[in-house]
């Protein structure tokens, strides 16, 4: 059930009407959440429910077993990780593995080809497996006591606002919240409504209006030979993926607030970062912190010397790239970012540049351009296409602006203008400026602006529909 569908709006309205009554007790709160989440998730395909049930049961019992038989807790952790990674490997990476095996076999002269399994990828598998693994790993580390109530555990694992595309919420954050009846305050509801409205605006008005242009550019048989065209397209894609993904996260957080739960911030204006390190502290925060805590730090982090630090960073980034998709282009995207981070660590260029007049702005611009170059690999169908597009982008002698007017279609004006205004507002920290902060009109204008945003989500909705990160 997509957030941007009539079915979801009906579902949530029905859910929230009954929620204040059923959330008062632990048992009814958990069971109601599980039933609602199962309905939400099963809407796509009821068969997916068996996988999340099986995956969750392995982790629930593994965590209990770790507490009861602590001498074997390492083995129970291995069982949990194998269960989760195994299901990911099977549904997400099996065909990727087979394709590469066939390629190697063909290279070595073998005629026979292994047929692809073509298994359906369950929606959100990458998210809930990571969420589930964080539970067992935290129990293993002693940071968390396992819950003895399976309903409590599954209410955490399957909670519908963040089930299919994050944010990945740690058990240490959410399990305690689930133990309490958290009545919502007016402030929660207001902040929740803002997040939901902004989230929908980013997704349906900005991202969905940009999607057809980006898709047409990347689907074309022959890429347009214009540097100007490709810089604009990649900028549009950068905007699309940010608004699509952060929009989903905002809606999830907003829904959580209406339910009385706090989910972590997942995107903190990443394109305003002044370095790649800062970028990764602002982009998909729940995933990057997951990889930091469960891959990078256990490998040793940067504690064991410079070379080991770089090695650990590269391993973490490459695994993160593969998490995004079963394709070498995602690994290429991650490798490029790992290279950026290595160079940044060695040269400390942001710290040097920031001392110059306008240095912060220069750092933000350079970081944004580097991120744009990375997005080429993320979006391209193949390495070949990515290299051709990068070649066009850096063929600066061939700007060929004639191709550009077709890109700036009228239905993009409002989304782009609104988004840019928002970014300038944040970048210049206008909300803290006295003329805005102390203005008596702010309290009245904010709800008015929110009303305009809500109406814009209906009238300026774009034609695209699926959230990009559903494919992960």
């Amino acid at each position, binding site marked *: 059930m997509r957030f941007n569908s*009539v079915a979801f709006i009906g579902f949530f309205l029905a859910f929230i009407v009954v929620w204040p009554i059923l959330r008062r007790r632990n048992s009814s709160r958990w069971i109601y959440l599980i039933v609602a989440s199962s309905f939400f998730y099963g809407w796509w395909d009821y068969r997916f429910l068996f996988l999340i049930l099986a995956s969750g049961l392995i982790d629930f019992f593994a965590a209990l077993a770790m507490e009861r038989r602590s001498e074997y807790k390492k083995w129970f952790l291995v069982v949990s990780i194998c269960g989760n990674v195994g299901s990911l490997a099977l549904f997400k990476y099996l065909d990727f593995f087979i394709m590469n095996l066939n390629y190697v076999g063909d290279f070595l002269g073998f005629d026979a080809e292994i047929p692809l399994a073509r298994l359906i990828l369950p929606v959100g598998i990458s998210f809930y497996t990571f969420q589930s693994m964080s539970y067992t790993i935290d129990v293993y580390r002693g940071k968390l006591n396992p819950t003895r109530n399976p309903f409590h555990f599954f209410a955490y694992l399957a909670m519908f606002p963040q089930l299919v595309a994050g944010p990945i919420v740690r058990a240490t954050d959410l399990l305690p919240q689930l133990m309490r009846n958290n009545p919502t305050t007016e402030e929660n509801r207001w902040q929740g409504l803002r997040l939901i409205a902004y989230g929908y605006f980013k997704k349906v008005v900005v991202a969905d209006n940009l999607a057809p242009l980006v898709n047409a550019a990347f689907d074309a048989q022959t890429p347009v030979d214009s540097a100007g065209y490709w810089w604009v397209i990649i900028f549009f894609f950068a905007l699309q993926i940010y608004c699509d993904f952060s929009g989903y996260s905002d809606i999830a957080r907003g829904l959580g607030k209406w339910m009385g739960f706090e989910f972590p911030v997942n995107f903190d204006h990443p394109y305003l970062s002044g370095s790649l390190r800062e970028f990764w502290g602002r982009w998909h925060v729940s995933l990057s912190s997951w990889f930091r805590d469960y891959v990078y730090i256990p490998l040793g982090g940067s504690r064991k010397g410079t070379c080991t630090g770089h090695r650990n960073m590269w391993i973490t980034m490459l695994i993160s790239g593969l998490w995004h998709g079963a394709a070498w282009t995602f690994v290429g995207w991650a490798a490029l970012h790992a290279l950026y981070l290595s160079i940044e660590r060695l040269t400390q260029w942001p710290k040097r540049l920031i001392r110059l007049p306008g240095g912060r702005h220069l750092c933000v611009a350079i970081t944004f351009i580097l991120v744009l170059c990375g997005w080429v690999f993320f979006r391209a169908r193949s390495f070949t296409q990515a290299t051709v597009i990068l070649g066009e982008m850096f063929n600066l002698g061939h700007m060929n602006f004639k191709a550009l007017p077709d890109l700036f279609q*009228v239905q993009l*004006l409002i989304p782009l203008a609104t988004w840019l205004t928002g970014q300038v507002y944040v970048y210049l920290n206008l909300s803290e400026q006295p003329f805005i902060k102390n203005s008596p009109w702010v*309290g009245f204008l904010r709800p*008015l602006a*929110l*009303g305009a945003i*809500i109406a*814009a989500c*209906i009238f300026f909705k774009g034609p695209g529909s699926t959230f990009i990160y559903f494919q992960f």
Partner: protein
Amino acid sequence: MFDTDITKSSAAGSGILSKLKHLGRERIALAFGSAVMFFLIFSSLRTNYIQGISPGRFWMMKLSWCECADMVLAGNSRVYRGLSPAQMQNHLPSMRIYNYAFSGQGFSDSYLQALEKVLDKNAPRKIIVLGIGPHALTKNSVEKNGYQKYAGMAFRERLVCRYLAYPLRWFRPLSPREIQNFIHWKVEKFYQHFHADGWIESWMEPEDPQRDISLARKKPPLTDPNRIISQTVMDNLIETVAKWRALEIEVYGFRTPVGAELSKLQNYKTKYDEEGFIERFEEAGGKWLSINPDDYHRYDGSHLNPESALTLSRDLARLIKESDPPDNKIKR
């Protein structure tokens, strides 16, 4: 006195401000209230007017047709806006006629099979009329088209589309044209009346008969192989025509009347050899209906206004009535 006036006006101003501040505390209610206000404002920007059946219900209705027709009309928007089954029935009174055209429709396998399924197998005379233009013979139109979009919907989505069509039409987004008209402060109204037989009667005020011709002139020659004539699509259509003929289904084809200049431009850009196609079409057993595009008036260069749609419907019905059945004799 002057000071008193200032004091009074200050008191009045602070009274308004305090009222606004108080209103601001009811911010959620205010947000929803202003959303309703903006909804009404944005609604006034609509210049696409819809009458008759709700669009969602209209397309779902088409998909539900099964073994109910003696004659099926097929093609893209030029057919669903250009042919009125009711008008055709005035000249072919014994026939049940349905307009099964979809937006941007190409002659894909699935669509051709669906056409056959709409025909009543027991009908004494079974006819398929194909509105064929070059765009319907491209890979792009075969891969992305209206039939595929609606037929590919999940059952639940179809239910929502069909039964919530009326309330949902008030929540449809503004079209790019409506936004353009607002930005350019242009008044251009577009009317559509959705009929139960599959015809969308449509017209514009003011009309712009040169619009699509100007657009076609500006576009550079197509380089994307998906947007030029596909030999595979053409061969598949010809084979299907031959198969239908073997099943004693009469097949008629015609070029939707778009005007000589636009026709030439489209043929050139898509590399369409129309004469060669017509020859193959007739060899396969189909019958080509020749019409004079100058006899019809298009409100945007491509689509017929209601009067011309009724005229074309009458003209095609007469041609079909007068035409002998093709070589394979049909038992009636």
